[in-house]
């Protein structure tokens, strides 16, 4: 196995996930929040692929990771369109200004 086991990959995934969550929570720029979402999805993907390699569950993990990649691309497109609309209406992209969006 070359010495690198499942646990090391899981730790990398956990660090990526925590970075993404902190990025989502603390950034005030909407694009920064989107980057946090990408980090979280990549942490989940590392876990999927590591379990697909180190457990006898076959290629299910890689299939799920591919779905995650495609859905992340779709999510980025829609969220970016929403951010552009928000910028057109407010001439800023600060998410703290979004509190007037409530129904």
């Amino acid at each position, binding site marked *: 196995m070359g*010495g690198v086991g499942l646990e090391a990959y899981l730790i990398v995934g956990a660090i990526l*996930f925590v970075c993404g969550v902190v990025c989502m*929570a603390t950034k005030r720029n909407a694009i920064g929040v989107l980057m946090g979402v990408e980090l979280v999805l990549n942490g989940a993907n590392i876990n999927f692929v*590591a379990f697909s390699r180190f457990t006898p569950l076959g290629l299910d993990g890689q299939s799920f990771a591919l779905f995650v990649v495609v859905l992340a*691309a779709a999510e980025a497109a829609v969220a970016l369109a929403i951010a552009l609309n928000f910028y057109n209406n407010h001439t800023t992209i600060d998410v703290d200004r979004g509190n007037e969006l409530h129904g």
Partner: protein
Amino acid sequence: MIEQLLFWVFAILTCGAAVAVVATQNVVRMAFWLIVSLGSVSALFFLLHADFLGAAQLLIYVGGTVVLLVFGVMLTASGSSVRIKTSPAEAFVGAGVGLLLLSVLLFSVTSVEWDDLESRLPTRNLSPAAIDSQREASSDADVAAAGSSVAGPAREAQAALAARTQAGRTVRQLGLGFLGLRPDQDLNRPEGEGLSSGYLLPFEIVSIHLLVVLVGAAYLARAKRRVVAGASADL
């Protein structure tokens, strides 16, 4: 040995760039660090013998999604909005909560014994990594003894398929899985047990979803003419 070295290099690159994404306040630099982090993640995928997924990660994420984000940064950049500061108190609280969450996750990851995972999962197959280490052991030992221990043709086909996965050629199996066939699961299965499920329906759903999302994004982000109340008659 070289695999271990590469893993550490790319793991440190991934985590360091992710921390840099959080710590940087400039959005363009955040995008750069995000590219570094996602590229290293794709290298980790290659190290995990997921060749198609690594290539897809490079093409779609680094080549597509991040470029889309950079376009978003450029379209919304107007002086002050490139650097919207997080206040130091918020950053402090965020770092504290993040460290707590990280410690919880690391505690739960390290408290599980992953080594005897094979014995606890209810499948007959071996994991690719275990097959790999077995082959290394058998090539070190007597090759003839290893050859005689092969049970039957199904087992042999399974081993051949696993060897192909092992060599990093997962494209054909992933494609068959998306068409609803699972040769990696079904070759070793006894008669009358049924076939395992593929991913044909999720694949179709995600295709339609992607189409709808792209149409919706184009509709949402279309250029609107600003209608000024007095000047609209002149246009």
